[in-house]
């Protein structure tokens, strides 16, 4: 009951936001939602499948770039370009899985990082196609029956897609498949001994995760009307990672919250100083030392301590 109330309240706040907040903050909220989707998709891998990846920006950027290239270079309609972005990201996830799933732990981290850098390298180096580090400017927001060019309708489009995706990911984590992923995170040998094909489960997890990361990437490109290799950079992967950890891995809600907090801090700090990356670094160190289970973990500890004094 309390949960239903809380969810209704959150939905109501997001629906009412464009009426109450100045447009700058609607823009910021849009960005938060997009990153929340990105962080949740990464949480599927880290918090559920136990696959810590340092290359998640690749799927974000693959989605965004594929869509942007089809729009700008092939003049395709958004009806084609947008789904194509999702397909490209999902395929990217599958390819990464084929190469990286042979390894575990540190090797997996390093391989995902290196593979993501290949994608970055293409976007950066193939100037004739991608515009190199100048990126692809002048992308128009889509017309899906109605125009989403203005900030408010676009915000609603993002909020709806992110909300539906969150629901779908939540359903997946509650399903037998999601339970099996958590089992694999705990012990691969145990799951194999019970007849689970661990590799296929992890492969599917990476593809699903990449799909949602690609969706976040497409929305990101529409939001900025622009894409550059920065979308594929290690820093983007790193930001996603800290959103997941600072929020609380394995909870979906936590990483979404973490995304909101990090985006807000980035916006706030960048408007006052040049030292955002320094602050981000300090957040990394502080989270690891003092809140390894994130905001959600802190909250759980706090509320259990309150209950039994």
């Amino acid at each position, binding site marked *: 009951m309390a949960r239903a109330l809380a969810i209704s309240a959150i939905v109501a706040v997001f629906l009412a936001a464009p009426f109450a907040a100045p447009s700058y903050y609607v823009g910021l909220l849009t960005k938060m939602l997009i990153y929340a989707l990105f962080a949740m998709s990464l949480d599927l891998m880290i918090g559920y499948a136990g696959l810590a990846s340092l290359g998640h920006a690749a799927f974000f950027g693959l989605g965004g770039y594929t869509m942007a290239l089809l729009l700008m270079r092939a003049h395709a309609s958004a009806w084609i370009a947008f789904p194509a972005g999702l397909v490209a990201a999902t395929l990217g996830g599958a390819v990464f899985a084929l190469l990286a799933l042979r390894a575990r732990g540190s090797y997996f981290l390093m391989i995902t990082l290196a593979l993501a850098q290949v994608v970055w390298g293409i976007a950066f180096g193939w100037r004739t196609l991608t515009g190199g580090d100048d990126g692809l400017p002048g992308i128009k927001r889509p017309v899906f029956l109605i125009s989403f060019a203005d900030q408010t309708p676009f915000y609603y489009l993002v909020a709806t897609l992110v909300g539906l995706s969150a629901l779908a990911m939540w359903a997946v984590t509650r399903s037998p498949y999601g339970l099996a992923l958590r089992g694999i995170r705990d012990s691969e040998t145990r799951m194999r001994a*019970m007849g689970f094909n661990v590799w296929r489960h992890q492969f599917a997890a990476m593809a699903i995760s990449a799909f949602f990361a690609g969706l976040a990437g497409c929305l990101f490109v529409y939001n900025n009307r622009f894409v550059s290799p920065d979308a594929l950079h290690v820093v983007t992967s790193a930001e996603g990672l800290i959103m997941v950890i600072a929020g609380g891995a394995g909870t979906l809600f936590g990483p979404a919250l973490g995304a909101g907090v990090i985006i807000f801090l980035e916006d706030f700090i960048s408007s006052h100083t040049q030292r955002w990356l320094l602050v981000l670094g300090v957040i990394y160190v502080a989270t690891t030392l003092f809140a390894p289970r994130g905001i959600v973990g802190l909250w759980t500890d706090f509320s259990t301590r309150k209950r039994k004094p």
Partner: protein
Amino acid sequence: MSALSIEGVTKSFGGVQALRGVTLSVEAGQRLVLLGPNGAGNTTLFHAISGNILASSGRVALFGEDITRLPPDARARRGLARTFQITNLLPSLSVLDNIRLALCGADRLTFRFFKGMASYRETTSRATRLLADWGLADAADRTVRNLSYGEQRQVEVVMAIAAAPRLLLLDEPTAGLSPAETLGLVDMVRKLPRDMTIVMIEHDMDVAFEIADRVAVMHRGELIAEGNEAEIRANKQVSDIYLGLE
């Protein structure tokens, strides 16, 4: 037909021969205990049967089907279940979820993405019933990590039998248990359905004879004796090894 037949299985790690041509066959419904000190090759043999390692040479067959090169999950799907010498559970999940996953594995409920686990009522009720049958009903909602070591050993056996395997491998389930807990676990194994073929590793001779229809003794990667209680107790080589240990 033999439930399990092992023919000339060898395994070497680097230069060390852990298994030197083991041949062994277990009839359906039989309870065989593998006796032997640590390092005799018992666990390596289990790994070769369950697929956690692949035999360097030789052949392993499950109910007549050659499974020598199959991965562990494929063997599990053919009706083989096992426990591990070092407790191997899903520590961050509840006891109920551990059992439910074992049932999902057995029922091939694996790539179900959207319907919640909670709506698979039949799986849940079977898991609950299993826990009740084995006196673990109160532990159902506890996180495995928070159970006592003895409880964890019990849960691991329940997970292995949840799938109603045709062949059950128990790798020293009594390891590290107190005498009272050991009795409880021996009792548990004795209560298992008679048609379930069981191979169990055990170091304690008395425990072994308590459970076994037949005992096989491993020593330095070789099978040195095989037979019923009287035959094993009378075997000079076996008593030498065991007396030498004590």
